[in-house]
């Protein structure tokens, strides 16, 4: 069923490069997700609070501009973004190939998506609770820090996992253009050199990782949400 020497190749990959590939994959998943939240969390909150009926309305042209930029970035397919952003990668991390270079387009692709996820999470917070906080004399910052974020915490954790898994998928895709990790094993050995066994192995590994992330996310959300009796 499999061509000769395929099993040996797989064994070789497992014993020599797998651990490093796994490490790269995790790095390419967690680092850009966290960086995307560093940008996307404040941005998403701003989209809610700066709204016409938000707690601190911002000029309408500014809000329209923000929504426009986010929509543009979200509509560019990731593979195209990957290439377009290469000059930025060179400027920021000094290279256009390898795991580090891929981090830049991953963050650029993910932060607008994360901003939208944060926006919907924050919008779920009961406006009545915000009003109650205002009636107690809370400042805008206090409302964001002590009401909006803590009350939206379960939704934020759930959406962190959605972002994490999406970015994980992007990272695996980047194996095609010089990114590292398990994605590269699947593409280089499995696809380019036509070793289906290696490809299946890599894909199954990716599936298992997604399952793990999702299960961990579900447990965290359940633990965090005090609305569940």
């Amino acid at each position, binding site marked *: 069923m499999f061509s000769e020497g395929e099993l040996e190749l797989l064994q070789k990959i497992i014993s020599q490069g797998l651990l490093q590939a796994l490490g790269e994959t995790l790095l390419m998943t967690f680092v850009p997700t966290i960086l995307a939240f560093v940008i996307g969390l404040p941005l998403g909150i701003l989209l809610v609070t700066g709204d016409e009926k938000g707690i601190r309305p911002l000029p309408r042209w500014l809000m329209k501009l923000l929504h426009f930029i986010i929509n543009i970035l979200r509509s560019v397919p990731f593979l195209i973004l990957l290439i377009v952003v290469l000059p930025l990668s060179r400027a920021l991390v000094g290279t256009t190939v390898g795991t580090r270079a891929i981090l830049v387009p991953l963050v650029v692709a993910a932060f607008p998506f994360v901003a939208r996820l944060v926006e919907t999470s924050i919008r779920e917070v009961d406006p*009545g*609770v915000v009003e*109650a906080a*205002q*009636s107690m*004399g809370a400042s805008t910052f206090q409302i964001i820090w002590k009401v909006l974020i803590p009350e939206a915490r379960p939704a934020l954790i759930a959406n962190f996992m959605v972002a994490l898994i999406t970015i994980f998928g992007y990272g695996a895709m980047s194996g095609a253009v010089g990114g590292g990790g398990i994605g590269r094993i699947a593409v280089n050995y499995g696809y380019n050199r036509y070793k289906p066994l290696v490809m299946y192995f890599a894909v199954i590994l990716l599936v298992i990782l997604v399952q793990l992330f999702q299960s961990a996310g579900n447990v965290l959300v359940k633990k965090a949400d*005090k*609305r569940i009796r």
Partner: protein
Amino acid sequence: MIELVKLSKTFSTADGQVEALKDISLRIEDGDVFGIIGLSGAGKSTLVRCINLLERPTEGHILVDGRDLTALSSRELRKARKSIGMIFQGFHLLMQRTALENVCFPLELAGVKRAEARRRALELLELVELPDKAGAYPVQLSGGPKQRVAIARALASEPRVLLCDEATSALDPKTTRAILELLRKLNRELGVTLVIITHEMRVVEQICSRVAILDGGEIQETGPVSEVFSNPRSEAGRRLVLPEGEKIHVLPENRLVRLVFDGAAATEPIVASLAARQGILLNILSADTHAIGGKTFGSMVLGLPQDETEAARALLYLREIPGLTVEEVTDYVF
């Protein structure tokens, strides 16, 4: 003392301008329990939100102890709001915090140290008779306890005034009474002024000393509860206080008679025999009678004919029937 001076609020909607409040002037004395009653859509919620400027009035001023809230900077306003507590129909508790942490919330806003905040929050939970629920999350509490937590939270900043926006409207009658009793206790013991917004007469009757009737965004009348409720002068007041009054007006008869059956012979159908023998037709407005062992017990309300002589003949006939008490009534409840 809270003074509302010529308050107006106009909302701009897609269908044009909506005047929610029109030229409202009110004065609420310190330590008072002041009710603002009106049907839904009367502008009650807008009015109460204007008192702490959650809603900014289009015109007019809000004076709290002589200080005009509409003239304050946002920082000063936030400070002023700490002396005006507010509770809501929907409680609006922080769902991800325990009861104790909810009560701590305004103390955290004010920068009170954690240990001190918890100590005071526990005292407040004791004050609202809920000390054993400190560790419970809102989802684990039913309506009454939730509102108690909200009251404790509103009191944490030691406000002089507590605004209650339909605070008991989501509660059953028994819980409503208990919450109102608690509010009255707080008014007596802490001297906190209560402003009670409601659409329910019984809430005003139970707790308020003065009341304003709001209708169509305007104050229709205001005064002591006993006066306004016993003798409402405005049309809106009469509609609120005497809701049955309207029903009686639309009845065709001007005289009503109540028959109390105390063992009259059930074999003789009274209304039918009046029609057959005397030619007098009566309206049955309500009847609740039971035939037990060939005799009738219960009561019935009949409308007498417009014609005076016919009405007199009918009364004469009815009064002669043994086991039947006949009395004329001026109004009754269906």
